[in-house]
């Protein structure tokens, strides 16, 4: 019974998501596509950052890899840019696989670095990606980017260009509607896989590595391999997300996969609550939809100035509100959106905490193997020079 209550919102959400295309116009459908593509990427990142504790700002790199892999695989071999002309379904899978493989290749580096060092080192990947995207013109179309063939499975097309007609309950199902269901399917699958992984042997090992590498190793977890696994999984998610974004855009260019995308992904998972699949989903929808909704509706407010008049105009207000919303969530919601939701559910147990990371008790020592004896790196070998020059 409690199981039903727990799953209730999820099932309800799913039913709503299934029914929405019958009601929404193209604006909302397109917003939904971007949101669902981001959901997939955010789940991958929360598995890496939230569960395995490896900060990455390189998610845009893997998304770009997936997007271009998809475009290249389905691309017309005779077209302007190189292409293989393979079926889109193959391309979608390949987008995940190629990103995963590259993520695996990067893992010797990611295994060496920790925390913010890893996060900022992965920024380098984004700039590297940009350099490659601009310079490998034959594959990427350079700065202009390349078009993305629409998705289709034999006998059914997901684009407006296809002639076959389909309507549900009187609503004509065009390209966006069809893509909606494709994206929804992939997003739900991603969430399901993510939950399974997090709850299973691998997820427990990753969380243990995050909390203490020493303890995890002592339990027989191969720490280097666990970290690599996390990177591979998250890269695969990013690759698929990239392919979905490519489909949602219809055309990809280097500018779409800049550092801003990486940062957006990070905002999504932190706002949602680190390590939570539902939180990542909520965060992705928040980050993608809020600016669009604000931009769409702020222009109807009466007190605003016309653009160009120098006063506060609607567009500026929308952006200010978006920034303020991020700040507000972090100031007032412990554990992000997921933390807030879980508190609402457990309101009766007053001491329920969010998903925030509490320090060790009673003494906060990062080294569990012995605080009363010196850890290995202590005396006389400080590598840091004094802070005076």
């Amino acid at each position, binding site marked *: 019974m409690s*199981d039903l209550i727990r799953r209730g919102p999820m099932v309800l959400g799913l039913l709503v998501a299934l029914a929405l295309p019958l009601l929404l116009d193209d604006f909302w459908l397109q917003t939904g596509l971007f949101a669902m593509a981001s959901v997939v990427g955010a789940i991958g990142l929360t598995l890496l950052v939230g569960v395995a504790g490896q900060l990455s700002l390189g998610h845009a790199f893997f998304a770009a890899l997936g997007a271009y892999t998809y475009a290249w695989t389905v691309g017309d071999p005779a077209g302007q840019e190189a292409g293989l002309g393979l079926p889109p379904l193959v391309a979608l899978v390949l987008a995940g696989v190629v990103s995963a493989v590259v993520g695996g290749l990067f893992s010797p580096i990611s295994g060496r670095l920790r925390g913010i060092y890893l996060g900022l080192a992965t920024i380098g990947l984004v700039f590297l990606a940009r350099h490659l995207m601009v310079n490998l013109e034959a594959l990427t179309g350079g700065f202009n980017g390349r078009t993305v063939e629409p998705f289709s499975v034999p006998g059914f097309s997901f684009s407006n260009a296809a002639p076959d007609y389909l309507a*549900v309950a009187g609503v004509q199902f065009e390209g966006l509607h069809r893509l909606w269901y494709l994206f929804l399917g992939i997003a739900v699958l991603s969430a399901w896989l993510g939950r399974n992984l997090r709850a299973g042997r691998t997820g427990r090992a990753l969380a243990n590595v995050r909390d203490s590498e020493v303890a995890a190793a002592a339990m027989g977890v191969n720490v280097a391999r666990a970290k690599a696994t996390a990177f591979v999984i998250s890269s695969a998610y990013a690759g698929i997300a990239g392919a979905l974004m490519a489909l949602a855009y219809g055309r990809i*260019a280097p500018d779409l996969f800049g550092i801003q995308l990486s940062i957006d992904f990070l905002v999504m998972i932190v706002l949602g609550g680190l390590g939570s699949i539902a939180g990542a989903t909520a965060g992705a929808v928040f980050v993608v939809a809020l600016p669009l909704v604000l931009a769409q509706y702020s222009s109807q407010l009466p007190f605003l100035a016309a653009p*160009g*008049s120098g006063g506060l105009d*609607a567009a500026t207000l929308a952006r200010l509100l978006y920034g303020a919303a991020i700040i507000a969530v972090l100031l007032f919601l412990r554990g992000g959106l997921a933390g807030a939701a879980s508190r609402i559910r457990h309101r009766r147990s007053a001491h329920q905490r969010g998903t925030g990371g509490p320090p060790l008790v009673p003494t906060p020592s990062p080294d569990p193997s012995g605080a009363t004896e010196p850890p290995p790196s202590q005396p006389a070998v400080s590598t840091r020079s004094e802070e005076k020059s």
Partner: protein
Amino acid sequence: MRNGTRTTLAIAGCCIVALAACSTKDPNASGNGSGGQSDVKAGAGVTDDAITVGMLTDLSGPFAAGAAVQVAETKAYYAQVNKDGGVCDRQVKVDVQDHGYDPQKAVTLYRSMAPNVLALQQVLGGPTSAAVLPLAQADHLYLGGFGWAGNSLKYDNAQIPGTTYSVEAANAIDYLVDELGVKKGDKVGVVYFTGDYGNDSLAGAEYAAEKRGLKIVPQEITPKDTDMSAQASALKKAGASAVILAAAPPQLASLAGVLASQKVNVPVIGHAPTFNPALLDSPAGPALLKNYYAFTSTAPYSSDEPGVKKAVDLYEAAAPKGAKGFEVPLAYAQAELLTDAMKGACEAGNLTPEGVVEAMRKTSDLDLDGLLTTSLDYTDPSQPPTRTVFVSRADADTPGGLKLGETFEGPSGKGYTFK
């Protein structure tokens, strides 16, 4: 576990119900939306008494200020048109949306606008217009105001206000050789933004340089590079006898200033987005006055031509304190172009998005009273409507900072071929 099964069953049930409501027969396969009561066929964004055109622009991102000028001018233009009776007996409404230079927002907002507008007056920005152009083409929707990048010539629904950056740059090389005494074998620096704008300019310059026997020294930069010392030094070392700058005002100020400080006294050539009159008050001002040449498709703010006068008068009445720049004649020219296409569609009795595109592509001889260099021919989508450009010099006493010199078309500008 049992519960999971039940959930699955429930979902499956819903799917079946949904499928039962499915139909694959198109009820209005032959009809085409609502026709007006008049003999003119009306499409998206058209009612009996109003036409809606869209502007998808950047009001909160890096180009917000210039975009706002264009919005103000465009609105003023249509207010005037409406006062004079409108287009096709309908009032023109402008739906302005802000994408903040974010392609994702641009695509989404495009989706919301496309079903409700007859045409898109503007989609501002390189990455944003690149994302929207293919979608608009698929929807057969007219699109203007995306700048002058050559790769827009791939789209038959896109109307370019003048020629391309590449032709401007090719003409600039011709001008350097023919008018400014640059000799065969000399080197010309091209400092350019990565992207559709800069790379298009570079392509034109490289083409012309090969034709005219010059050598190009390319220097790639990004909008966040505002210190051009290293580039200037490199150009000085290479011995460049002129520089083409396909970038923005900050880069122009820096480059011109550093070149002058290093006693490199060579012509600096820019496109419309390169220049901003405020630069003339900066430390780089004297250098600009001496060496800056603007090669643009639309006339500078100060032009005496009647079209430009009208644009400026309208703007100064609407925004007396607004910034003066190339955006004013540009926005006016774009509005004229679209209005002309809409009128053409009206006359053809097909006031639909497709009709507007068709009418635009039938335009073979349009003169905008000096807003653009020559009369315009849009019948061949793969070619720009003209290859002649305005050449202006920086001038401190002129409103908008640029004084019109002449119109120019050189052999390379004429011969430049688009890939």
